[in-house]
């Protein structure tokens, strides 16, 4: 085994442990060093469809949680191993999070976030949309809680100044002698869609995030009620509505009345531009509405 292969396997293991496992098991997500499209492709060619992690217990647990996530939507007894698309989406999500890392850019390296987002966009462009329903389900199985990621930002104020810590514990030096130095610690929670720092390209970040979501349409639909990036009916999401099973899975995915308004609003935008798509979505929304009414009646009975 060459040194490069060992290095790639090491990067894959880190990506699995530090990004994929927390997405499934919750806990602390620690993105790895930015991967980029070239390395991602190398990595995928090495581990796709037959990856075996050194910690078999962790892998077994993650596989079980992926299956359980899918079993909420459809009766499947097994899921295939992580495919090339899954690994690339995982790498893209890692790079997306790292683009908001405050340590990425410096005085002379302020362009790094933009470069990384562009690389991420490049990587996403190489991932094909879900080819079938199983493909969409396996992607959603991994990223069902991707937008639940939160970063805790801590602002420390003392009598002569202030400091901001993004997603990392504040310096103990700055919090010492809190009474004497009149230290005030304020913690805020930041969602994934608001991670970029003030000087970073917010629009590009949201655009890449929307592209990333479009490649996992069920995840996109599950978070249709988000504020940014606004949900719109992508071709991969629309393709889910073309089959009866796909409609059923989408209905179960969006089974929350809070998302109804977002879906309707997105459907309205299709009315003028893509009338046929609009009819498809409207038909689905009407069907969903009737199902909701029916379940309400059953509850009353």
């Amino acid at each position: 085994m060459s040194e490069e292969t060992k290095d790639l396997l090491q990067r894959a293991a880190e990506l699995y442990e530090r990004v994929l496992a927390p997405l499934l098991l919750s806990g602390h997500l620690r993105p790895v060093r930015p991967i980029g499209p070239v390395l991602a492709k190398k990595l995928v060619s090495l581990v796709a469809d037959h990856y075996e992690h050194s910690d078999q217990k962790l892998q077994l647990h993650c596989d079980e949680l992926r299956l359980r996530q899918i079993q909420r939507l459809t009766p499947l007894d097994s899921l295939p191993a992580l495919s090339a698309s899954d690994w690339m989406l995982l790498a893209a999500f890692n790079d997306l999070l790292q683009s908001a890392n405050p340590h990425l850019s410096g005085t002379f390296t302020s362009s790094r976030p933009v470069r990384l987002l562009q690389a991420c966009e490049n990587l996403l462009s190489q991932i094909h949309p879900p080819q079938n329903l199983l493909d969409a389900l396996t992607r959603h199985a991994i990223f069902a809680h991707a937008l639940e990621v939160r970063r805790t930002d801590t602002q420390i104020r003392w009598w002569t100044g202030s400091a901001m810590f993004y997603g990392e514990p504040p310096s103990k030096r700055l919090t010492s002698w809190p009474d004497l130095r009149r230290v005030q610690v304020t913690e805020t929670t930041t969602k994934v869609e608001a991670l970029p720092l003030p000087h970073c390209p917010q629009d590009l970040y949201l655009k890449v995030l929307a592209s990333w979501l479009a490649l996992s349409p069920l995840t996109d639909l599950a978070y249709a009620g988000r504020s940014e990036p606004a949900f719109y009916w992508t071709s991969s999401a629309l393709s889910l509505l073309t089959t009866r099973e796909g409609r059923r899975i989408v209905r179960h995915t969006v089974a929350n009345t809070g998302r109804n308004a977002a879906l309707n609003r997105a459907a309205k935008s299709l009315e003028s531009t893509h009338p046929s798509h609009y009819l498809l979505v409207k038909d689905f929304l009407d069907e969903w509405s009737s199902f909701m009414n029916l379940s309400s009646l059953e509850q009353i009975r």
Partner: protein
Amino acid sequence: MLVTALKACNVGPMLERVALHQTRLRTPGLSLDGRGIALGSHGLLLFPSLDRLVAFFAVYTQSQPLDDLINKLRIELLHSKLGNREVALLFQIDSSERMDGMAEVAALAGGFALTGGGRYWVQYRDAAAPYGYDLAKINQANATYLLHHTTFSQGYDIERTINLKSLFLRLSPRNDPSAGLEPGPRWILAEQGLGGALTHYLRRSDVPARVGICEWPPLSDLEDTPIRRYLFEIPSYPDRMNHLFLSTPGLRLFYPVSPGAAVEVGYKHPIQLQALPSFRGPGLVLFLGRGEPPLEIQNLPTMGTLDTLVRIELSKGESMATTSTSEAAPLRLQLRLLPSQRAPSDVSACWIEPEQYPLLRKLLYLLGNDTLRKSSLAISPQGAFLRIARGAQLLPLGHYYRAILPSLYIPAGYEAVPAVSPQVLLSAMDIPDRSVVILRRDGTPWVIQESNFVPLETVILQGTAWAPLPTQAFEELTQPLPIQLEVEDLGFRPMRDVEVEEV
């Protein structure tokens, strides 16, 4: 062979067994009933003494009344020519089943059962002769009764007849300390001098009772006035009065055993008097203990409720009231409490001053569940009175008290003088009912209503501030825990792996 069989069949010189399907009997007045048993018109139970007869009645009345027999029953004292005396109980027989039962009881009491009528009597059937006995030959002896038994044949004359009721009245109740102690209605016979006081005592204690006056003729011709006693009928009364009724001279407490008979508490009559119709009213027979003769009241006197007889005080009769009090005043003593020579014991309560409440609070943490449950507390501005069922002396605070009555407490180590009984002490204070009296060391009483005592365990725990715990729907619990993004330093050249290739 035939002679041997006949000899074996003979059971005595005078009797022979009655055979199955035998049609003729020699004994006058004897006939066969439907079951083929030789039965006379009367039965006779022969007892060697009166006490055996009493034993017979004691056993018989336990299971059945004498109503059916009483009108056809007589007791005769017999004597033979040889001079021995026996007691015979004669009664009319209507069936062999009844005679079987009486014969069994008679055998238990040591008597013989015979049947017949008029002059000739033969032994009633037994296991050896299931169909009874008949005379082998008629004896012409000169006697009122000729009794033939397998063990004897004897002629008897009647010496005298004994009245059944008078026999029962002559029986002295046996000493039985537990008799009459269970709750229930009671009769109290009070001597004339105690009647008024008892009436007021019962009335003041709110005991529902009726009272009447009974009269008996004077004990001797030298006396002119009849004996008058108060008769109280009490449906129920508090247990605490038992001691007063039983220990006060002049009061006799009776428990009813039948509608017309009552036995003194602590004694038990050997016969079930309820079985005898003559003890079912309308009069009343009071059986006294200690061997004293019973008191018979032919007809119950007119009974009145206590409310109608209570003394009425007229507000304008001041002169009479002043006269009566001025006569008794010189004899009245002030109640005092003096240190006792005996070691204090039976501490059952303690008086705690308000200054000692902090210490009491600490000690209450140490008390066990049983003690907390059985203790009661009454709090007043002057202090708290804590009643503890057991082990009050273990509380190292307050002034110890002991209960000389359930509702009267005196300081431990002190005794009340004059040394009157606790009941008298309590009645002298004229305390309202359902009150607890606490005698202080200077003799002055404090009175706490019983209703003011509350179980200790219900008052010592103060309310705890609580906050509602918000709950959420189960669906929310299924949502995953937040995923916390941790940012790390990327080190030197973080972008070294990122290369963009042309698509």
